């Protein structure tokens, strides 16, 4: 299947994001599903559409050969599939992830933090330093977008072009 209409591609990626949010719910990761639905399906789609308004709706036909990209995708996909063979079965209680610090968090949260949602306790308190890092990442990304895009709206640029021409 080939799609050159980028509007359709953006919509399809939004649908894919919403579907994966449903998948996360089915895997009992409601917090992740929440974020995926809000950010992936919601905001990203709007921002992608905003980008489309700045560029074009149609993708330009590729000039180069498609053999190399196909090879890269094929090899990466094969490597990922090979990697899944080593994964522990889904929901297994004996995986290293479940035996490392998770039992300690579950045990200590009721007496130390006393919030019913252990995800929040881990995210905000036990791993507060990591979450601070995430906030700083969002902060930096926001500042970067403002610096790159602010104050260079199109009308003004046209005026500058006219000044340059005269």
């Amino acid at each position, binding site marked *: 299947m080939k799609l050159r209409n980028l509007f359709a591609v953006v919509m399809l990626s939004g649908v894919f994001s919403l579907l994966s949010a449903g998948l996360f719910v089915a895997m009992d990761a*409601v*917090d992740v*599903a*929440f*974020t995926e639905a*809000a*950010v992936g399906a*919601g*905001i990203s789609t*709007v*921002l992608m559409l*905003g*980008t489309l*308004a*700045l560029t074009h709706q149609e993708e330009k036909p590729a000039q180069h050969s498609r053999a190399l990209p196909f090879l890269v995708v094929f090899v990466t996909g094969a490597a990922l599939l090979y990697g899944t063979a080593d994964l522990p079965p889904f929901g297994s209680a004996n995986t290293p992830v479940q035996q490392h610090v998770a039992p300690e968090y579950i045990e200590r949260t009721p*007496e*130390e*933090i*006393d*919030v*019913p*949602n252990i*995800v*929040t*306790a881990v*995210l*905000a*308190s036990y791993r*507060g*330093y990591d*979450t*601070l890092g*995430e*906030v*700083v990442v*969002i*902060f930096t*990304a*926001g*500042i970067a*977008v*403002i610096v*790159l*895009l*602010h104050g*260079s*709206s*199109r009308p003004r640029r046209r005026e500058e072009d006219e000044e340059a021409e005269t």
Partner: protein
Amino acid sequence: MDHHFILRVVAKMLMPPIMLYALYVQFHGDFGPGGGFQAGVIFAVAFILYGLVFGLDSLRRVVPPAIVRAGIALGTLLYAGTGIYSFFKGKNYLDYSALADADNPVAGQHLGILLVEAGVGLTVASVMIAVFVAFAARAPEIKDTDW
């Protein structure tokens, strides 16, 4: 955007529930799924919807860019400041037990989580609005006849 009467009315009706839901997600994060990240995004969606339907100039009047930019920094500052406060109270950085009396560390944890989640929500909402405005300001305004 003078036509599209239904779109405008529905957008206006949806905005308060979206904001209320964002606040619910923000403050109910201790009990169920959700928290500052999700709440910030949902809160920003209300303003982005407003900007999409009523135009960028209306959005700029509702939330001036200076306030949005201040929000980005203030949220991060609130989070980091909570850590620095506990630092000066003689505990580790971001150890919220320092926020309450020594005999009641759990209350300090509750207050700390509330504060940092508020910081996260403020930063995320402000960044989302700022990014949307930055993108939308570059595109030429869509004329009513183009719809």
